[in-house]
């Protein structure tokens, strides 16, 4: 096991800068996801850690060792590829033992590791089959097994579940979490699926255009997004954004008006907000926090474009009168219908606030959420509280 420290990592392809000064500290035994949209550089970052890309700058340390210039084979890592990368002409046993045998490992030790990995992954009965004879889930297990037999300090997983169907993905997600618990080894997992990232990770790195947009626990990303990108990227349906202006400011909060707002809205801030009167801001609010209400209580009004009924809840897509769109999540039996005029209240306690540069202005959280985030932050990898583990 080992912690990993990445400092000012840069990588480009020709004139295209893909990674622009990445700094990360990943704790020993932690499960970290690299999350971001296509082209954000998450796979390149993973491949850089694996030593499959030549860096333009920066350094990578694994434990006490600087592995920046080490060849992949000497980094003490293992990688699981998106398309499994199993050798199609070798059976499962050979796929697992191929690398070990060529590194001069003794037959007994190879057999022990292969048997052990096969038992852990429940693929013992498949050892004599070729990859072609396996289902997607079985192939994925073999690919993970090939990583396990190396007994590496760091596991790198590049979208390992993206080729599986939805049901199998859920099953494999649970198995991966259990495997991490069992192996107690540092794992880095690349995905563009936020559900995978939120459910599997101790912490998530959100990448945007080659930069770390935010690095935090899943709940922290959801409840305390550092900027507009993270706020819009995490959560489904995505957060709604409404433009407004600062009408008034004081030590403990702001009063917002104008923009898309029909009525003034007062918001508390944790500390004096670094913005003055008339400054433009963006309000962010999760769809499930919006309330359809009467005209005299409403901050916004609009017409319903579409209602998606999902049973327990309904997604209401609204075109605002002042321009722009909103999505509200209401209870499944709410009688709202298409083309209906609706009035929307924004509960100020659930609002996120962003300055003109898209940076979050810190707001107080309710006690329950704060306690939950603190509890998650206090936890180390695989559950136990950090202080307890180091005690």
């Amino acid at each position, binding site marked *: 096991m080992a912690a990993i420290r990445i400092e000012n990592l840069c990588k480009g392809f020709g004139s295209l800068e893909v990674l622009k000064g990445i700094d990360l500290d990943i704790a020993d035994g932690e499960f970290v996801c690299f999350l971001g949209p296509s082209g954000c550089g998450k796979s390149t970052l993973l491949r850089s850690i694996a030593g499959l890309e030549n860096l333009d700058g920066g350094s990578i340390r694994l434990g006490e060792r600087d592995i920046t210039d080490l060849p992949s084979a000497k980094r003490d890592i293992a990688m699981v590829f998106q398309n499994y990368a199993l050798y*199609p002409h070798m059976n499962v046993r050979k796929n697992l033992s191929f690398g070990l045998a060529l590194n001069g490992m003794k037959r007994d030790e190879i057999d022990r590791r292969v048997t052990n990995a096969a038992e852990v992954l429940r693929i013992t009965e498949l050892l004599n089959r070729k990859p072609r004879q396996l289902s997607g889930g079985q192939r994925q297990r073999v690919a993970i097994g090939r990583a396990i037999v190396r007994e590496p300090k760091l596991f790198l997983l590049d979208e390992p579940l993206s080729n599986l169907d939805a049901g199998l993905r859920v099953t494999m997600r649970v198995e991966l979490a259990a495997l991490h618990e069992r192996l107690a080894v540092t794992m880095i997992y690349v995905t563009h699926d936020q559900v995978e990232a939120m459910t599997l990770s101790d912490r998530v790195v959100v990448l945007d255009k080659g930069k770390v947009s935010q690095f935090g626990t899943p709940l922290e990303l959801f409840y305390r997004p550092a900027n507009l990108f993270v706020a819009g990227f995490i959560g489904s349906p995505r957060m709604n954004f409404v433009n407004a202006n600062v009408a008034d400011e004081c030590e403990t909060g702001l009063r917002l008006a104008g923009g898309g707002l029909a009525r003034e809205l007062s918001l508390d801030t944790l500390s004096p907000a670094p913005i003055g009167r008339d400054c433009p801001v963006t309000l962010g609010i999760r769809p499930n926090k919006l309330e359809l209400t009467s005209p005299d209580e409403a901050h916004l009004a609009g017409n319903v474009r579409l209602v998606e009924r999902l049973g327990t809840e309904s997604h209401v897509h609204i075109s605002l009168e002042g321009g722009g769109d909103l999505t509200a999540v209401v209870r499944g039996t709410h009688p709202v219908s298409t083309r209906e005029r609706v009035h929307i209240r924004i509960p100020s306690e659930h609002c996120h606030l962003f300055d003109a540069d898209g940076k979050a202005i810190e707001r107080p959280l309710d006690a329950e959420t704060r306690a939950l985030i603190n509890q998650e932050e206090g936890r180390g990898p695989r559950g136990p509280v950090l202080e307890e583990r180091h005690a």
Partner: protein
Amino acid sequence: MDMAYAGTQTGAARRKRASVRRHIAPYLFISPWILGFLFFTLGPLLFSLTMSFFDWPVVGERTFVGLDNYRSMFTEDPQFWESLWITVKFAAIYVPFNIVMSFFLALMLHHVTFASGFFRTAFYLPSVISGVALVTIWSWIYSREYGLLNFMLSLVGIDGPNWLGDPNLAIVAIIIASLWGLGGTMLILLTGLKAIPKELYEAATISGVPGWAQMLFITLPMLGPMLIFTFITSIISAFQQLTIALLLTKGGPLGSTYFFAMYVYDNAFKYFDMGYAAAGSWVMFVIVLALSLVVMRWSAAWVYYEGEIRQADGERNA
């Protein structure tokens, strides 16, 4: 007749006609190819098989002689064995050289990033040059007095030999000239190399598998079907070697480049013994077929075909 019954019968007849149309339509679509195959491939093939059982002069009466052409070829015609032996010698050298050189060229081009298109075209170009043009170029290269090859050798103080006049060197000269057209084989192998997923190599690199082992245990097995295909096509082209030998050496000197195809050609168009030439063609066909079957049988144990179905019973679910 009852109206309802009549209607049912009409409906059944219509369905039958539609069914017939549905079954015939595909064959109509491929009929141009089928007709071409029947008249220009299968027809001549069977016709030549028939010819091989006849004494078939171009002009004059044809006489059925049964297996007599084959018997006299195997027992009374030393030229048959000599030409066959020269062809086997040629194939034994040409085929492995063709494949090994094509493989390494393909490997080089696969890794070359600078001007790869130019190099690919340059290496493939000789394959599209007509046989006659190729022979003209090589007869100039091999010329004893004015040839490029001997000129180059003279620059390093070597008195170049008579490449096409020496019975020992003439076959070497033909092998080299034939290898000049290895671009086709190279292109097939290059396509095969490009089809190997790069993740296989990356996974091996991370696992610490050295380069030579990646070549031996990943590249070669993954390229197996292509290698076998080029192996068989090389054997076929070696046994069909005619143009270069016919134009460059005319089978000489002293019959040292008198290939089997030339032997068949001479029997047909020099001695006008069509039946005997047809028998020779069929002997060549059987030899090539037998060799191809042996290669395929031998390769089955170690060549992996992605399309093979080796489905295990009932254990497909995760």
